[in-house]
């Protein structure tokens, strides 16, 4: 059918073409746009889609980095869910972590951004920098290592000993009771990152005439203004912030490792990321590690979808 239309060279009609042909035609028509987007797509494919794909494939093998992998079907997943207690611990930890740090940092970023937005522009610039600095200054969170050093000369220990609360230093990052809360505190401290900046940008971008229009329409207080005017206008930023917060919260591993060591004592702060690292780099069971990565990917994807749903309710 499509051959016929091509031969007759009539004015083409969408209904007369197959979908593939139509797409091809459209591509040819918009080729400049495709050329312009190509660099990104190529890079995105090579560095994001391809690895994810390879990882999913590898998750069905017993690849160990050096020898040719064998196909083992669902073995990795079966072991993961049925015979790996530590994975279950790490899932638990990850969810606790994500549940507190994700929304926590999101709200924190939002509230801080909102308050800062009320300041005069010059002060705002300075305060923004101050709030944003923990996340740009790379390894600055390592100072928490000094504050909560297990040495009796660590700040926290020295203070507590001085005031007579304790006699022996507390092994902060080496005591299963303290590791998780401390890591959460540090995570919140470093989380005022990109999301926070985008919120500030969002607040700046709200058209002031909308507020006037809102006032005319009967908005009574600042809360209503926020909910009905500000937030709906800055939905893209909210979405971006949420995605960042979630990915960060789930992918939180490096900071815990540098604070509490790897693995953290008694797996107290062992997240899925750590489990992944454990199998990927310590044991070189890349197949199994890929299975863990795949699971983590699905969890992140799922929670992103959930958040999208929630955000669509903003302003309604």
């Amino acid at each position: 059918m499509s051959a016929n239309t091509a031969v007759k060279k009539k004015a083409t009609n969408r209904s007369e073409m197959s979908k593939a042909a139509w797409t091809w035609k459209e591509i040819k028509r918009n080729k400049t746009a495709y050329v312009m987007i190509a660099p990104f797509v190529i890079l995105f494919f090579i560095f994001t889609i391809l690895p994810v794909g390879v990882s999913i494939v590898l998750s069905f093998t017993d690849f160990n980095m050096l020898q040719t992998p064998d196909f083992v079907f669902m073995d990795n997943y079966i072991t993961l869910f049925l015979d790996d207690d530590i994975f279950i611990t790490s899932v638990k930890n990850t969810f606790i972590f994500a549940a507190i740090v994700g929304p926590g940092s999101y709200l924190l970023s939002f509230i801080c951004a909102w308050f800062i937005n009320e300041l005069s522009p010059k002060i705002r610039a300075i305060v923004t920098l101050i709030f944003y600095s923990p996340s740009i200054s790379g390894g600055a969170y390592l100072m928490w290592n000094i504050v909560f050093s297990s040495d009796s000369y660590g700040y926290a220990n020295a203070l507590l000993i001085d005031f007579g609360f304790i006699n022996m230093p507390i092994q902060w990052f080496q005591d299963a009771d303290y590791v998780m809360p401390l890591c959460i505190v540090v995570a919140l401290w470093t989380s005022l990152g990109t999301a926070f900046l985008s919120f500030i940008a969002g607040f700046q971008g709200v058209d002031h005439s909308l507020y006037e229009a809102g006032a005319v329409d009967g908005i009574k207080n600042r809360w209503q203004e926020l909910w009905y005017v500000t937030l709906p206008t800055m939905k893209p930023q909210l979405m971006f912030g949420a995605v960042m917060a979630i990915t960060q919260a789930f992918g939180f591993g490096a900071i815990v490792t540098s604070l509490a060591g790897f693995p953290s004592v008694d797996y107290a702060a062992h997240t899925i990321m750590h489990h992944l690292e454990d199998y990927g780099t310590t044991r070189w069971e890349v197949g199994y590690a890929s299975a863990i990565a795949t699971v983590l990917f699905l969890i992140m994807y799922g929670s992103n979808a959930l958040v999208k749903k929630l955000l669509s309710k903003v302003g309604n």
Partner: protein
Amino acid sequence: MKKSMFKRLLCGFLTVLMLSGVSATGTMAAAGPENNSAGLTTSAPEETTKNSLEEIKAILDTPGYDEYVASLDSTKKATETFTVNLADAFVSSKGTDEERKVEKLSASQTKEKYGKDVASIYLPEVGSATFQFEVKEDGLYMLEIEYYSVLAKATSIERMLYIDGKIPFSEARYLTMYKTWVDNLEEGSSFKQDLTGNDIRPTKSQLPSWNTYTFSDSTGFVVDPLQIYLTAGTHTLSFEAVREPVVISTVTFKPYVAPPTYAELLAEYEKNGYQPVEDVKIRIEAENSGNSEYPILTSDQTIYPLNDRTSPKTYPQDASKTKLNTIGSDKWKTNGQWIKYTITPEKTGLYEISMRFKQSSLEGMYVSRRIYINGEIPFREASYLEFLYKDEWQNKRLASEDGTAYQFYFEAGKTYEIKFEVVLGSMSEILDRVDNVLSLMNQSYLKILMITGSSPDQYRDYNFSRLIPEAINNLVFSAKELKAVSKELKAITGQTGSHVATLNKIIVLLERMTSDESQVAKNLENLKTYIGTLGTWLLDSRSQPLEVDYFVLQTPGTKLAKANSNFFQSLWFEIKAFILSFFVDYSTLGATVEIKDDDKKVEVWTTIGREKSKIMRQLVDSDFMQNNEISVEIKLVSGGVLQSTLAGIGPDIAFLASADCVNYAIRDAVLPLNEMEGFDEVMTRFPKAATDTLTLYGETYGLPNTMTFLMMFYRMDILADLGLEVPRTWDDLKRIIPILQTNHMTIGFPSKTAGTKLFLYQMGGEMYADDGKRINLSSNVALSAFTELTDLFQSYRFPLTYDAANRFRTGEMPILIADYISLYNQLTVFAPEIAGLWEFISLPGFEDENDTVDGINNCSVVTVEGVCLMKGAEDNPEESWKFLEWFTRGDVQSSYSNELVAVVGQSSKNATANIEALKDLPWSSREYNNLMEQFNETVGITEYPGGYIITRYVDFAFMDVYNNGANATEAMLDYVTEINKEITRKRKEFGYDYLEITYSNSSDYIESE
């Protein structure tokens, strides 16, 4: 009027009274810690390795030279000189063994062996030798020793001197006789160059030679030679070996005559009618004489030619290439180090000497050098020539303070040796005082610490002045002394630089602490910090770095060349350098032999750092590539060995930790070595412990490069002060813990897995059972080892986390069990103020009847880094193996380690795993003995598949006990099954036979009594 007069008198009287009171406490304080010096009981040297309490006490209690002189009844100088030939005077020796014994040599033997026609005696690097001699006349004598530096290790010769069985004063503990070093130059006179024309720093070799050593203070605090008071009659003299063998012919006792002053010398010049020479300019490049007959001689291996790029005027200089053009700098800064030049002038007469130098490190201060001409200090001022600070190069005459250039008399055709030696100069007295203050402050701090602990209660009245009056007095004295020093320093340098400011800060603190007793406890932490600061201050002031480009002997009054280039010259130089930097291939830097890119090429990956890989490069070029026709490429990487091996672009040879080596090997990334040529012979170079860690089921996957292990570090002064013997067993240790703890001190002990391993192997246990199929931690011995460890930590509350070097330095942790090489290296640079107050010895152990050596099992578990053949070497296994075999040879390892110390300094000792090479490393004989004692009692743990899991779970078990007070046995057993499961899983993965261990049957593998 009268009244005020009376008042004045009274005031004056009171002042005198107070001052004398203070100074009395002061002198008392100064004498305080050493007040039993009157009854000098320093015993004759006995066995060198013994660590008895008395011996330590004796060593620490010897008074200083000042006190010695003060305590003498008469300071009459002797008038006559007499010489004792040691070969004739030899009486007895102690502590030497069959291999290393004292040897008398007749004149003809000496002539034949050492080229001098005089009877002499060979003293080995261990034990002591005693000599007898007659003194005809009472009086003070200085000593001159004629010695021959035998070709041996790369350190100076060190001896302790005993007169009549006693160390006369503490300075006699360190007789440092330097060896003579010479650069190995191309055709005797020029530097070797790499392929791109850069100069390569020449290696140095010892030049065994006869020298005269004048008995003097090795720290430089006492400027003049040390003198000993001898009564008429028979005396004995003993030399106890600390480092290195030496041949001594004679010891000359003579009265000390100070050299004439310059004014006196000038008068003599005039009397003799000496005239200034005319039109002479002899320029000598400081880094290289360019004369193969008279090369530059140095006292240390570390004084070598350097490259200066700060000035285009430095000669020789090149904008793109590295030219060695200066010498000295911070390699030539320790008291006593010297550089010797030989010249033969062509004209007779008076010369002046000018020098182009740079002294940019001691701001607001000067550094000092002493000049010897043919072994004599020509005039008094020449023994402390001062070189002032300036940010750039200076070209100046050697001159007095008012600027008159000194003139030196040289005769035509004669050969002169000009020697520049580092001295502390006029700073020596000040530094001596600060040194005393520092040790007083240290002692006071420890005394206070023993009462209050490290975090004192600010609101408690400790009543220090009643409990430890001497400690408080010492602080008073310290404040006073530092004040005086600070004033003098200001007068000398004429400015209040950062140098003086440091002292002033400390004075303020000391005054606050001593004026009000309640401030003592409050400021204890500050005192600790300031002791460290003062230690660093002292170290900085004692170092006398001077960089020299050239010096000139010339007609007095000749115009000097400009020291620095002008702005445009500098600019042009920098521009050239910048442009040329685009055309230089930095990757071939240092290679002297063309690296051929053929299949035989061996690629080596290291993570050891630039300095080390440069040294390796030089060794490879000068030795391996010359003899083997195999190209070697050395690459400095920061990991990624496994990834690149996976990608097929990996190295042929890599340096890997033992665990990595075996782990890569079971994945076929590392090749076994057993089939290689001469494998069995090669393996005998290393202790079994080291090779065990690299071997799995009979296949060895790497040759040990370094091997480290735990040893015990202890503070001699503190243990002696508390009257504690050095513990040899853990029971001994447990006995002294309460004493240390009442004095608010503690012990640094390895915890978690390291501690468990330590006790497990000392109790005769093993980590694995059934050939690595399961962990042995459920055995009785392992459980009791683990319980023992956790008990130690629980009942004595040893700290788990601590900064070892810092706490050891302050004395909070007088006993520390730590990795020997890293802590030793750290302490050498980090804690100079406690140098000589600590040492490391073999670990304490458990009593064990089976141990044949001393009935104590005190083995130490080793950590090994191996050199491995990677998968990439499958194409050229022969060549790669040749490199491996070569690199782990005794002589190569020892040149590598010694070069490292030469280039980087004493703090970079290499923990070589080669037994032969360890002998050649610059350890003192005592350190070496202690080290060997532990070296012979080491075990290595085989790395079985799945071994990585052990550390994790043992740590968990330990923390569970430590944090939550869990039962040690239960805590451990909880994890044993987990460990076994992981081991089984891994063994399955790699196809080894395994035990099916599950939760249900795991109890079968637990030993029951």
